[in-house]
Structure formats: structure tokens, C-alpha cells
């Protein structure tokens, strides 16, 4: 298929359709409503299920219900809407039904604004709801990657019976750029649904899907099983992209839109003779901590750049564990940092590192 000029929100919606999406439940919220609008036309055309729910609370529980039936189902929202879905996410995580959701992040806290931001990093990777669980979190940096991540998100969700969240931000959701959509995958037939699915207890014992385990030891056993699964995901599914890291003395770490801007920063810095590289985490959970630890042995300093007050920098610092200095630069409230701003931070870091060495 050829490249087309595609808007991020419509592109991920169409990519989901082509990944075999059977049902979508959602609630309008800027800056991702184009996805819901696209699916409101597209899914009925294909005789699949689209429903606009009365709230994000209802939407995630409709998703939960459909996931219990063993179909490919998703929702999408933006920051305040994801907060409302957290109750459902916790139930889904414990019940181990596969679900995909997209968070096109906007400025917060509160109603915030509708500008692109990355303030939901902690929510996505640390605490998507009450109790001990993680979602797999994919962070695309452009429309093509957003499309590719939708296919991957369903595969991972089903492989591990877990939640996969794709976190974009308002600029990836609303940007238009050339990208290629995948070919249409066939939708699963009802006979192909998993043996745990709720389809009616015909010629088998009834299936139950629950997140209630009243005995302490029963619930601990469930938690141990969930943790073992998360460990397996952490072993197998870490993804990151690197740019000019082979000979880097300084390392940038950034995800999503800022990760993309940092590619420009690397180019500009190298033109000025600074050996700068970039590591862009593609999975925010599991986090590429081992690779960051390796690079921390090689470089003299790390600059983490985010569109928030400093969230991923905590995970980077944990991974680095004192091997080299870790600095942070962030913009908030929907302000997208310019390459030049970041470059001057890189220059500062380069000066500090050099100054520190001279002082030694």
C-alpha cells in the first residue's frame, strides 16, 4: 500500500479496524474525537460494533464486557477521560481480559487544556488504577509508528491477556503526515474465541470472569500469577530506538513528540561538534532500563526531556543508579519545547560535565 496523508487520530482508528477491531466504545474528548468519529462511520459499514457511551466510566465497562466475550475491543480517550477509566482498568487487569486503549494526552492537571502534554506518564506506567498491576505502554513518536503500534497493541494484549495502552499526545493525534496503513486482517470468527470467553455454557462448564477473591491467600496467589506474567513481559517486550548512540558522550532520553524533536537536537548538536546520542523509549512499561544502564557507563551525562514536570526522569535515574549525572529539562501546560531550547540545555550539560572533569 502507498503512503497517504493521514491525521494521527484517524490513522490509529483505521489501523485498529485493520488489526481486526470488532467493537469500539468511547466518549468524545478533545484532542482525540476524530478517532471516535471515524469509527462511528467505519465500524457499522463493516457490520462491527460502535457505541458512543454516556461517560468514560461506562465506555471502559462496555469494553470490559465485550472483552469478556473474547472479541478484539478498544477505547480511546484523553487525560481526564483516562482518569475516569481507571476503576475499570483495575478490574480488567485482575480479570486478565485483553483490552487496548489509546490516551492522546493533553495538558493537566484538572481540566487543564487541550494542548499536547506528557503529564500522564506516571498514570500510565506506575498507577493505572488501584492495586498491583502494570499495563504495557507503547509511546509512538509519529503517525507511522502510531499505526504500527495499534497492530502490536492488540497482539501483545492477547498474547499476555493484559491491557495495552498506546500513549500519544495531542500533537501526534492531530498532526497530518504521510504514512502507510496495513492491509486488512480478517476478523476472528466466533468459533475462534478463547476458551475462557463468555459465550454461553454450551457443552461445557460455565465460565466465570471475576476480580473478586475473598480469601487473602487466594488473592495473594492471583497477585503472584499477575506478577509472574509482568516479569515475563518485562523480559520479552522492552523496546527502544537509538539515534547516534554508538560514539555518544552525552545522551538524550525522551519519548513521543519530544523524542522526535530530540532527533533534530542530535543533528544540530553534532553540527556543533558535540557527540550527542538519543535513546527513545518505545515501551514506557516495560522500561528500557538495562540499555540505559549500559549507555550510562559510556556517556558522561544524560539529559531527560519531557513535556511534564519530570516523571520519566525518575525511571532514568533509577536505571542509571549514579553511573553518570542525570539532568532534566521539561515544559508543561501544553508547551512543546523547541529544538533550540533543548540544544542550549545540552550545551549547558556539556559545559557542566567538562567543567566537572577539569575540577577533578
Amino acid at each position, binding site marked *: 500500500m502507498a503512503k497517504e496523508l493521514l491525521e494521527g487520530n484517524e490513522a490509529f482508528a483505521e489501523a485498529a479496524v485493520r488489526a481486526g477491531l*470488532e*467493537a469500539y*466504545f468511547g466518549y468524545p474528548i478533545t484532542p482525540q474525537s476524530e478517532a471516535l468519529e471515524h469509527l462511528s462511520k467505519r465500524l457499522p459499514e463493516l457490520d462491527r*460494533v460502535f*457505541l458512543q*457511551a*454516556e*461517560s468514560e*466510566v*461506562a*465506555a471502559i*465497562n*462496555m*469494553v*470490559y*464486557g*465485550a*472483552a*469478556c*466475550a473474547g*472479541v478484539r*475491543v478498544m477505547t480511546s480517550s484523553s487525560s481526564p477521560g483516562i482518569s475516569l477509566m481507571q*476503576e*475499570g482498568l483495575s*478490574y480488567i487487569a485482575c*480479570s486478565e481480559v485483553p483490552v487496548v486503549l489509546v490516551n492522546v494526552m493533553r495538558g493537566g492537571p484538572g481540566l487543564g487544556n487541550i494542548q499536547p502534554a506528557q503529564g500522564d506518564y506516571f498514570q500510565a506506567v506506575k498507577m493505572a488504577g488501584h492495586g498491583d498491576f502494570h499495563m504495557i505502554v507503547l509511546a509512538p513518536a509519529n503517525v507511522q509508528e502510531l499505526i504500527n503500534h495499534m497492530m502490536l497493541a492488540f497482539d501483545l494484549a492477547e498474547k499476555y491477556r493484559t491491557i495495552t495502552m498506546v500513549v500519544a499526545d495531542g500533537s501526534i493525534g492531530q498532526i497530518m503526515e504521510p504514512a502507510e496503513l496495513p492491509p486488512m486482517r480478517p476478523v476472528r470468527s466466533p468459533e475462534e474465541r478463547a476458551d475462557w470467553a*463468555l*459465550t*454461553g*455454557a*454450551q*457443552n461445557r462448564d*460455565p*465460565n*466465570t*470472569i*471475576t*476480580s*473478586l477473591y475473598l480469601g487473602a491467600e487466594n488473592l495473594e496467589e492471583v497477585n503472584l500469577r499477575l506478577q509472574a506474567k509482568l516479569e515475563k513481559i518485562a523480559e520479552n517486550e522492552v523496546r527502544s530506538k537509538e539515534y547516534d548512540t554508538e560514539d555518544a558522550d552525552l545522551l538524550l532520553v525522551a519519548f513521543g513528540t519530544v523524542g522526535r524533536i530530540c532527533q533534530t537536537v542530535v543533528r544540530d548538536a553534532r553540527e556543533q561538534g558535540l557527540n550527542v546520542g538519543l535513546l527513545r523509549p518505545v515501551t514506557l512499561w516495560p522500561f528500557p532500563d538495562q540499555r540505559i544502564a549500559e549507555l550510562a557507563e559510556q556517556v558522561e551525562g544524560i539529559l531527560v526531556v519531557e513535556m511534564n514536570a519530570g516523571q520519566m526522569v525518575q525511571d532514568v535515574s533509577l536505571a542509571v543508579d549514579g553511573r553518570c549525572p542525570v539532568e532534566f529539562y521539561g515544559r508543561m501546560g501544553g508547551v512543546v519545547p523547541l529544538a533550540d531550547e533543548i540544544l542550549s540545555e545540552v550545551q549547558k550539560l556539556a559545559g557542566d560535565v567538562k567543567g566537572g572533569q577539569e575540577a577533578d
Partner: protein
Amino acid sequence: MATVDIAETMEVVYDYPDSLTEADTHYCPGCTHGTIHRLVAEVLDELDVRERTIGIAPVGCSVLAYNYFNTDFAEAAHGRAPAMATGLKRVNPDSVVFTYQGDGDLAAIGTAEIIHAANRGELITTVFVNNAIYGMTGGQMAPTTLPGQVTTSSPTGRDVQAAGHPIRMAELIGGLPGAAYVTRQAVFDVRGIRRTKQALKAAFRAQLEGLGFTMVEVLSTCNTNWGMSPQEALDWAEEHMVDYFPLGDTKVSEDVRALMGA
């Protein structure tokens, strides 16, 4: 002396419905959940839909309903059963889907979900058990607690000026265009139990015919949290609940009327 094989000579006149498991329930002695579970199960058996049925359990005393029904089941978050049922039914249109919810679940925390599921005319059946109190959490005031009724969170009796009025859900839901059949029944005596079963059967039949949303509100008791014996609770409910929550249909669409007449 000759021995008699009892199994050969006696007829089974009362047994578990296929749609119930034989598990011992956790319900208090005197609780009416057991009665209502059995009525639902008898209806599923009589309509021969057990193998197509998916139930959604609420949060509340009937949270473990999936241990007692011999059908596929999911356990919802508090109040969200109608949303889960919507998702399940939309992707499994040939299934029979029902929610089983109490008054706190349906009429407080889940008010948005039940109203919108009903208003969309979701092809599901809701069994709404109203006993005017939060049972599982220890007898707190419910949205359906009667004026003046003492609970652990309305210790001097429900003051409607401060706590609002008990909410009549059958009337509220019956007023929505998507609802095909909505009724309020009670299981305080044999006649009421029979009528409740008829209502449940009508509701599930309407679902099978695709006529719209159906709900059977069942007035029930909580002798434990009301601080009464089972019989006192039944008598108290008959005397006090029915005045505020009148029995009868609040919505019977023309299609449902035709179905019931047929």
C-alpha cells in the same frame, strides 16, 4: 419383610433447576435472594436458554451470584453491570444477558449506567432487588431507604430534608422510550413470588424477541440489617415498602403486551 426401593416408587416433585448450581449460598437465613435466584433459574430453564445465558453480578450481597447460577457469568464493578452487559450483548447478540443488581448498585452509584442502558433499549434484562438498605457493607442508608427508616448511617431515621428522598426506579426507568417492560413485584408471600416469576418470564421473553430493555424490580427484605426475624421483616416490608413502592407494571410496550397476550 420386603424392602421397597424408594427411588422407583417416589416421584421427584421439587429439585434444583438446571440453571442453579447446588452450592450452599452465603446469604443470611431469611434472605430473599435465594428465592429470587431460584425464580430466575426456573425461568431460564423453562425458556431453555441456560446455555445461551450470560449473567452479570453486581457489588453487594449478590456479588457471588456466579457461584449459584449454572451459566456463564462476569462480575462487574459497583453499579457498572448495565455497561458491561451492553458490551457483552452487543458483541454476542444471540446471547441472553441479564444483570442482577441491588439498590445501592443500581439506584445510587450505577444510576447513569442503568438509565442509559434502558434508554438505548439494550436487549438485556435487569433483575433489581430492592431491600431499602446496603446489606453487605453493614446496613447503611440506601437510595431506597424509606423516610424515617433507621440504618447504621441514618441513626435517627432517614431525614429526607438532609438525605433526599427514596428513589422509585421502576417509575423512572419505565418512563424511558427504550424500556419495553418494567415492573415492580415483591416476594413477601407465595402470591407475590408467583407473580415475580411471571414478570421475570415476560422480561426474558421480551429480550428473546428483541423488544427492548426489560427490568423487574423485586421488593425484598434484609432481616439481618433491619434487626428483625425473617417473618417480621416480611411483615414490615408488606406494611411499609409497598406504600412507597407500589407494585405493578410501569411500562409495557405494545409489542410486549402482544407477546404476553399471545
